[in-house]
C-alpha cells in the first residue's frame, strides 16, 4: 500500500516550529516508514505531487503570497493543522496589527539609527508581494482541522499528533503536550 503523504509550510512564522519538528531527531527515520514527504521546506518538492493526508502550517498570513500558499494547502490536504502560536493567533508578527504599515516602514527604512537613505526610498518594487493590512491567523483564511499550540509545540507534541493521524488513532494528547509553553 502506498504511504500517505505529509506536506509542511512556513508562512509568517520564524521556522521555529519546523525546527521543533526536526527535534524528533532519530524518530524521523521511523516517520518516513509511515509517511512520504511531499511539498515541504525540508525536501526539494516544489509543488504538490498529489493529495496529502496531513498538512502542517506554521505562521499566519502577513502578505498575499501567504494567503495563496495557505489556500493551496487547504485544497491539497485532507487534514490541515495550524502549528504553533503564529498560525493559531498570528503570534509575534501580529504585534504590528495595531500599527500602520507606513509607521513600520518609516522606522525600518527612514528613522533607524543606522539607516543610510538620502533619497528616502522605500521597498516598493513589483517583485515584492503586497503586505496585508494585518497579520491573520490561518483559521480566519481557510478552515483548519486541528490546532497544536506552543511557541513552538514540542517535538513530542508533533510526533504524537502525527503518529496518531497516520495510524488512524484518535488524536488525544495529554495536557503536558498541548499547553502554550
Amino acid at each position, binding site marked *: 500500500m502506498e504511504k500517505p503523504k505529509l506536506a509542511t509550510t*512556513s508562512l*509568517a*512564522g*520564524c*521556522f*521555529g*516550529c*519546523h*525546527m*521543533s519538528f*526536526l*527535534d524528533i*531527531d*532519530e524518530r*524521523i*527515520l521511523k516517520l*518516513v516508514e509511515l509517511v512520504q*514527504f511531499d511539498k*515541504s*521546506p*525540508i*525536501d*526539494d*518538492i*516544489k*509543488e504538490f505531487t498529489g493529495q496529502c493526508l496531513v498538512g502542517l502550517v506554521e505562521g499566519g498570513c*502577513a*502578505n498575499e*503570497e*501567504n494567503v495563496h*500558499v495557505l489556500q493551496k494547502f487547504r485544497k491539497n490536504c485532507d487534514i490541515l493543522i495550524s502549528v504553533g502560536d503564529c498560525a493559531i493567533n498570528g*503570534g*509575534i*508578527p501580529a*504585534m*504590528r496589527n495595531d*500599527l500602520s*504599515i507606513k*509607521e*513600520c*516602514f*518609516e*522606522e*525600518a*527604512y527612514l528613522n*533607524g*539609527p*543606522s*539607516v*543610510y537613505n538620502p533619497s528616502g*526610498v*522605500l*521597498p516598493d*518594487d513589483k*517583485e*515584492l*508581494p503586497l503586505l496585508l493590512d494585518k497579520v491573520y491567523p490561518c483559521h480566519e483564511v481557510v478552515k483548519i482541522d486541528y490546532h497544536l499550540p506552543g*511557541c*513552538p509545540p514540542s*517535538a513530542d507534541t508533533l510526533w504524537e499528533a502525527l503518529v496518531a493521524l497516520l495510524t488512524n488513532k484518535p488524536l488525544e494528547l495529554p495536557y503536558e503536550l498541548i499547553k502554550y509553553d
Partner: protein
Amino acid sequence: MSDNNLKRVVIEPVTRVEGHGKVTVLLDENNKVKQARLHIVEFRGFERFIQGRPFWEVPVLVQRLCGICPVSHHLAAAKAMDIIVGGENITPTAEKMRRLMHYGQTFQSHVLHFFHLSSPDLLFGFDADPAIRNIIGVAAKYPDLAVQGVMMRKFGQEIIKATAGKKIHGTGAIPGGVNKNLSIEERDFFLKDIDKMIEWSIGAVKIAKDYTMENFDMVKTFGSFESNHLSLIREDGAMDLYHGGLRAIDAQGKNIFDHVDYKNYQDYITEEVRSWSYMKFPFIKSIGTENGWYRVGPLARINTCDFIDTPLAEKERKEFMALTDGKPNNITLAYHWTRMIEVLHSAEKMKELLNDPDLQGKDLVVTGERRGEAVALIEAPRGTLFHHYKVDENDQVTMANLIVSTTNNNVPMNTAVTKVAVDYLSGVEITEGLLNRIEVAIRAYDPCLSCATHAMGKMPLVVTLVDHNGTVIDKKTKE
C-alpha cells in the same frame, strides 16, 4: 541603455523559501548578464512594534524573529539589557552558562546547515537527482553520516535546553544574568558524550576539507570574489563568538579598523535602503557604498581572527589559512570548511565549559546603575549580529535597531549570485546546471532568511526568461 532593452530572468525559490526570497537576472541585448538580484520579500516591522514593550521582555520577544538560531537574538538582547540594568559585568556563572548556550547553538545550527541541508550537494554533486538531495536521501546512502548529523544537532539542542530551559525560544538569559545554573546531573549527561561529539566534528571538518581539495579547480572560482571581512575579535586577537571588539579587514588582510568598541558601531557601519528588497545593504562608512560591503560568518571569522584558542580547531585553522598563504580566503564555497572548523571549536569549548565548576555557581544576577541606551553584538552562527535599544524611565522600549547576520551578507550573496549567473548562464536557454548552481552559491552563506524573511538551505527554483516585450522565451522548473 534603458532597462526596457533588457531581458529579465526570474528565479523564484518557491518551496524552501515559500517565495520569501527570489532572484532576478537582467540580460542585455547580447544576452550577457547585466545585473542579478536576490530579493528578500518578507517584512515584519520588529523595530516599530517592539516600541512600548517592557525591556525585560525583549530577550524572549526578539528571538521570535528566528527559530533557526533564536539563542543568538536571545543573547544579544540579554547583553543589551545587562547594560540597561547596569549589570554588564555579569557573574562568571552567568557568563559561562550563556557561553555554553551559545556554543551549543552554534554547534547545532552549523550541523543542521552542513548535514541536513548542504551535504547532499557535496556528497551527490550539483547535478544529482533532486529527489535524493535531502537528509532522507543522505540517510539512505550514507546512514552512519546522517545519524551522526541528527545526533550532533540533538546534542546541541539538549545543551540549549539545559541552559535556556527550552530547545527553541528559551528563557535562560535575563537582564543582568541567567535564571539557572547547570546541575551535576545535567553536566554528567553531556560529559559522557562530548568526546564523541569532538570526534565526529573532526570527521565533519575532514569531509568539508576533502571536498574542497578534491574539487579545487571548480571551488576556487565558484561564486567567488574578493571582499572585506568583518567580525568580533577578542582583545588578544582570538576568535570569540560571544564577545569582543569589531575588526574589519580588506581582501588582502589589511586592517580597516580594529578592536572598535561596538557601542560606536554607527560611526563605522551604515545600511543602505534599496527599493527592490526588504533587506538593507550594510557597508563600512569610511569606504562607501560601492566598495565598503563585507562578508560575515564563519569564513569572515576565520579570516579576521589571529588564532583560535582551542587546540584542535586551531590546527585546522592553520591548515585552512595555509591554502592562501595566510592571506584572507575569498572562496565562497570555503564557508563550508570554516563552518565545520567552528563546529569543532564549539565542541571543544563546550567540553572546557562543562568541566568548569563555575557552572554550578549560585550567583546568577547582578544589577547596578540604570541606563537608557544599550548596544550589544554577538557572533551568531551566520555572522555578526547587532542589537541597539533605547528604554525610557517607565521601562518601555522607545527604539530598537537590529542588523541581523544575513543582512550583513546581503551584498556578498547578491555578488555570488551575479558571479554564478555570469559564469553559467549562456544565451537564452536556462540550464538545469544554472538553477542548481545558483542554489548552491546562496546556500554557502547559510542565509537565515528567517531573520530577514525566513528560509532554509535548499530552494527548488522556477526560472522564467522573458524578453523585453514580455514574451516568455524559456521556462524551467527544478523540483
